[in-house]
């Protein structure tokens, strides 16, 4: 089983966020890509969009399903991973290495309420056993 990077924080909705000072990078976890199956489409917000912690900010689609993306933290989108528009399957190959958006953080303290790698790993182990 893939390990979850310890310098990321995680949401229960299976997004990861990596903080660097006042900025952060956001993606979806390996558990998410495995559940989804082949990813065929990413609907990301435009640069300049404000996203709000806990609210949807886009979607990821597999052949069979549409999955909303929930923002792990609030902020403004500064960069969007253009590769994913033409090669969304990269997320399946390397979910933790395929970022979706970069943001400036409105309030870095929001990350304190997110799950650590260890807590997230425990969380998905419980989800998987249902």
């Amino acid at each position, binding site marked *: 089983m893939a390990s979850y990077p310890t310098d990321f924080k995680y949401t229960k909705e299976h997004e990861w966020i990596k903080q660097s000072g006042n900025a952060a990078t956001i993606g979806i976890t390996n558990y998410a890509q495995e559940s989804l199956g082949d990813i*065929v489409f990413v609907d990301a917000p435009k640069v300049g969009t404000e996203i709000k912690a806990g609210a949807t900010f886009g979607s*990821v689609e597999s*052949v069979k399903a549409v999955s909303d993306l929930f923002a792990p933290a609030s902020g403004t989108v500064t960069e969007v991973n253009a590769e994913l528009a033409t090669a969304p399957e990269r997320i399946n190959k390397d979910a933790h290495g395929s970022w979706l958006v970069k943001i400036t953080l409105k309030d870095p303290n929001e990350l304190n309420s997110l799950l650590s790698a260890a807590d997230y790993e425990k969380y998905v182990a419980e989800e998987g056993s249902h």
Partner: protein
Amino acid sequence: MSTVEAEAEVVPTLRKTALNVVHRQMGAKMVPFGGWEMPVEYPAAIGCGIINEHMAVRTGVGIFDVSHMGDIRLAGPGALAAVQHISMNDASRLAIGQAQYSALLYANGTFVDDVIVHRLGEDDYLLVINAGTREKDFNWVRDNTRQFDCKVEHLSDDFTQIAIQGPKAVDLLQKLTDANLSAVKFYWLTRGTVCGLKNILIARTGYTAEDGFEIYIPSDEATSARVWNEILEAGKEFGAVPCGLGARNTLRLEGKLPLYGHEISDTINVWEAGLDRFCKMEKADFIGRAALEKAKAEPLKRTLIGLEMTGRGIARDDYPVLDEAGNKIGHVTSGSPAPFLKKNIALAYVLPAFANLGSSVNVEIRGQGVAAQVVPTPFYKRPKKA
């Protein structure tokens, strides 16, 4: 993320096919479908996943457990008359060993179900029907054939049905049977020994728009598992993979094969669905004929078309179809990415005014209109063998 699946159902208890344990052992993702627990796709770790499974069928061979489908046998001197009465295609054209696509209709010309009618013998017919409509169809057939001298049997639980589909299907199955498959044309059937089992029905039919076969073997778990594994083993040299309902859907969609509850249902008639060529109005009376005769004289209220997304987005089941001004003109019946064509496609019912090839419409995707174009169907046709 949260996931919204197009066909999630809440069912108290799901039925399982004889191969359920085998699918789980292979790590398949199981989902409810038509009252059954079925594999939707197999793991990437064994070279599967919807896209790989779809491509295997288009370029090599894929193996499907389709035991959830139903089987009704009509046998006796009145069997042909009974079949003719309840179905719209002309079964009198069938030679022994031949099959045809057909449908059971209500008196108002709408669909009870679509069906493949197989002529097994002189007065012996097998109807293969959809999973979710097993009980409804059997009751319908039994209740509407009482006046004919034939026995009507519900054989659905007697068979494990395995579909072997793709350009290499014939090479794969030939390794496992003494039947001469090269003598079996498409939509014909034969019997032979398969994996050591005698007198197995082998039909050159399928739901993938490729060449392929469906075999009907005894439904006990041990036999079913043994045959399934032998097929996969024999298929290794052709790149055979197990395939789930996910690929089954994308394959049939590319080929514009209807799915009950989507393109056909009890609120849609034969003309709207565009299935004219399977409906033989010149036949003696059959259930639905009178209503269809009447409907033929009136203009169509809606018609089934093929759409290709030209804007960025995936049209999915039930999404509204809009004209360029944003007015609703129809709805998507089935929509998905098409793995072989590498496009996003859909079938949809629209007002006939918008059905011309090349017409521009919009599909409403999460509140936004995304451009699409009316294209010819089927979207995919398998290449003719040289």
